[in-house]
Structures are given as structure tokens and as C-alpha cells.
């Protein structure tokens, strides 16, 4: 099998672990070595990283309604 046609299922899981900061340094090195040879996995890594960043950057944050914290706090001592 050529590198591009390899079964990449184990790397698919590793991509997720590395992106989420859950991989060990050995696992990360193992994946990075593979990414130099496999365009398909490199694409997946880049897209998944980008989506993760976009979610954090572009999703609007809701403001906590005014007075909610005070209402909750006042109910504690009732």
C-alpha cells in the first residue's frame, strides 16, 4: 500500500487526541511523522484544528441577564 492509500483509522483517532491536547508526547510525535507523508490525514488535522478555533472565536457569547446573580444569592438565605 502506498502512504496515501494506507488505512488511517488509527491516525484519525490520534488527530483528535492531539488537537484536544489529550495525546502523550510520544503519540504526538508518531502522528506528526505520519502527517508528513499523508495528505489525507494532514487535511483532516488542519480542518479539525480550524473548526475548533473557529468555534471558540466566532460563536457569540450570551450576556448573563442583569440581576440573575443577585436573585440567586438572595434565595440562598431565605
Amino acid at each position, binding site marked *: 500500500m502506498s502512504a496515501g492509500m494506507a488505512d488511517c483509522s488509527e491516525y484519525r483517532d490520534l488527530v483528535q487526541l492531539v488537537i484536544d491536547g489529550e495525546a502523550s508526547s510520544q503519540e504526538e510525535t508518531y502522528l506528526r511523522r505520519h502527517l508528513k507523508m499523508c495528505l489525507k490525514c494532514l487535511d483532516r488535522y488542519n480542518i479539525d484544528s480550524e473548526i475548533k478555533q473557529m468555534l471558540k472565536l466566532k*460563536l457569540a457569547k450570551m450576556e448573563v441577564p442583569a440581576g440573575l446573580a443577585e436573585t440567586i444569592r438572595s434565595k440562598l438565605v431565605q
Partner: protein
Amino acid sequence: MEDDPLKEDYSEKDKLHVFDNEFMPHIDSMYNFAYRLTYDEDDAKDLVQDTFLKSYRFINSFQKGTNAKAWLFRILKNSFINDFRKKSKEPSKVDYQEVEGYYNSDKANKSITTDLRIDTVKDMMGDEISNALNSLAVDFRTVIILCDLEGFTYEEMAKILDIPIGTVRSRLHRARNLLKEKLHSYAQSMGY
């Protein structure tokens, strides 16, 4: 929570101290999580209020020095399932087997990875990304929110959701594939 063998015995003063200093600072994240679960400002407000009142009632189950945010998120998630989800029109359970069968297949992985381009994702507006996320079933939406927006570790997510870490990983994997498919559909409909 009541069954937790490691219970603290806080004084009334300590309870308020823990509540004010360890719980209340998370109100912003809690409200955003509640809103993304319910899509309704009043429901989100009620859910956050219920969660904080429960957290105070069961405060002896909160061990000092442990992750207060994860503990609060777990209570919020359980309150949502028990009190809010029943009222919601959303199907209560995703057919995971059906989803797993398709989304773990090579065909699905191939079409998603080859068709969605990085520049397309970069060009997308917040609304498009938000719509794609909101269109996912709540269990899939939840793992993405917890991981990508709130930055919880897999171990923390496993505790919040009461599922094994392996299930966190596979659910996250499926959720991301579904999200990519939604983003791809948006991209096509917008002519990217």
C-alpha cells in the same frame, strides 16, 4: 450526590464563602451552556438558577480543591435532562448505532475530509457556525460545547456526562463529523 462517601462538613459561613468564591465566578459559562442546551433565555435563566440552588443545597458533596466548574456543569446537565428535556420537543435520544454505522465508515470520512476546505471554514460567519452547531442533536452538541468552548478534558467530560472516556472520544468524533457535514452543506448553499 447524596451517596458520595467523601462529604465535607462546611459551617454556614464556609458554605457562603465557597459559593461566592468558587461557584458564582462560573455563572457566565453556566448561562452560556444553559442557553446552548435550551435556546431560550428564560429557560436558560431558570436552569442556571436551579443549578446554583441545588449546588448550595448539596454543597457538602463538593470537595474542596476539586474542579468546581465541572461539578456545577454536571448538576446543570442533570437538571436539564431531568427537568427540561422532558418538556422539549427534541427527540430525547439519538440512535447512536445508526449514526455510528454511517459516520465511522470510510465513505463518510472520505467525503467530509475531501470536500470541506480550510478557507471555507475560515470564511464562515459566526451565525453559520452557530446554526450548524445548533442543528446537532443535543448529545452531540454537548460534547463539542464542553470540549471546544469550555475546554474541559476528556476525564472531566466523562464525569460531567456520566459516561466512560472511550464514549467521550467516540461521541466527540461523531459529533465533529456531523458538524463538518453541516458546515459543508452551508458552504454549498452559500456558494463558497
